[in-house]
């Protein structure tokens, strides 16, 4: 009489299968995290741009008012100031994060041909004065969010 015995067989994943599974999970979760980080970075960049836009608009309006009133700002002295474009405060009003930008402007006088002297420079023969005003904001100085916004406008000076 002969007996045959069936052995218990243990079934499991092989090393390659487990590694493949881990790799797929790692790739999927990694791409999700990367996507979230990229979107958050882009949103923050948009927020910085919004703030910078608001600051530049207000500053351009202020410079325009100074030109209107004949209170000319000096390109060299007044240009290139530091402004805060983003500030994060915690619940205790302690500032934890600050992004600054530099704000510049350039003004040039414009006039018709009849008001120019022989060198092509606007003379004071004509009373009306018009200036072009270009304002620029560059932010932040040392970071990967660096960006620039420019405004260009014309402004007349009120004369009596």
């Amino acid at each position, binding site marked *: *009489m*002969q*007996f*045959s*015995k*069936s052995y218990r067989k243990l079934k499991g994943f092989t090393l390659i299968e487990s590694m493949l599974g881990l790799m797929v999970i790692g790739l999927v979760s990694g791409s*999700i995290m990367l996507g*979230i980080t990229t979107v958050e970075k882009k*949103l923050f960049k948009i927020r910085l741009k*919004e703030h910078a836009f*608001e600051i530049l*608009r*207000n*500053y351009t*309006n*202020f410079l*325009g*008012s*100074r030109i*209107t*009133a004949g*209170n000319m*700002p000096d390109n060299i002295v*007044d240009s290139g*100031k530091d*402004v805060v474009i983003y500030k994060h405060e915690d619940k205790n009003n302690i500032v934890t994060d600050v992004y600054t930008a530099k*704000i510049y402007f350039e003004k040039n006088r414009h006039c018709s041909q009849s008001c120019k002297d022989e060198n092509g420079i606007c003379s004071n023969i004509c009373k009306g004065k018009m200036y072009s005003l270009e304002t620029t904001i560059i932010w932040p100085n040392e970071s990967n969010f660096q960006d620039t916004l420019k405004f260009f406008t014309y402004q007349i000076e*009120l004369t009596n």
Partner: protein
Amino acid sequence: MTVIVKPKHIQAFTLVETVTALVVSGAVFIGVFSIFAILNNKFEAELVRGELVTYCNYALDDMAQSIRLADQVYKDNDKIVTRNRKILHTYAFSQEEGILKDGIPIHEEVQYNLNNTDAGISRHKIFYIPQKKNGFIKYILEKWYIETLSDFDNNVLKNNSLYDPANGIIKGSSIVIKLHAKLIMGWDEKVYIKKIDFERLAFSPGIYLENF
């Protein structure tokens, strides 16, 4: 004669395997769901933030435009009045209705039918709805602040070199408007996600000439 003894073998998961599989899949499900919920909340908060920013910018631009064209700007109780010859505008602040222009909540209405033959067929594009019908608070306008630049500089800015060198008349003719808003996205007004501030600086040549 060969006798094969083969015990009846039913293939199935053991209790430990089943429980482990349930725990692992449950954890994965909770993880995926929480990521989805967080992303969804952030996305919704961002949409609402965009809505708030658009509204505040629109309201501030409207006020700044009225100030630029005005010969006179003065306070009447809590209201701001701008007067340009015979055209008069009043602006008031309300936490429930937003900024009121001439007593009406400020909004931009898009009229599709230019001939206006179908009255009522229009759509409000920019509006202030801080709360949903079920009481969920999206955002709230906290307060506003309107002062001349000279007063603002003395009280708030103090050492702001950005607006320093101008003469007093320019500062007296430039009006600063500030709006403080809170993004809430919840049921409790006191618990907010973030504060958002808006600012406009409007120079009025009319006021300047009056003061000169």
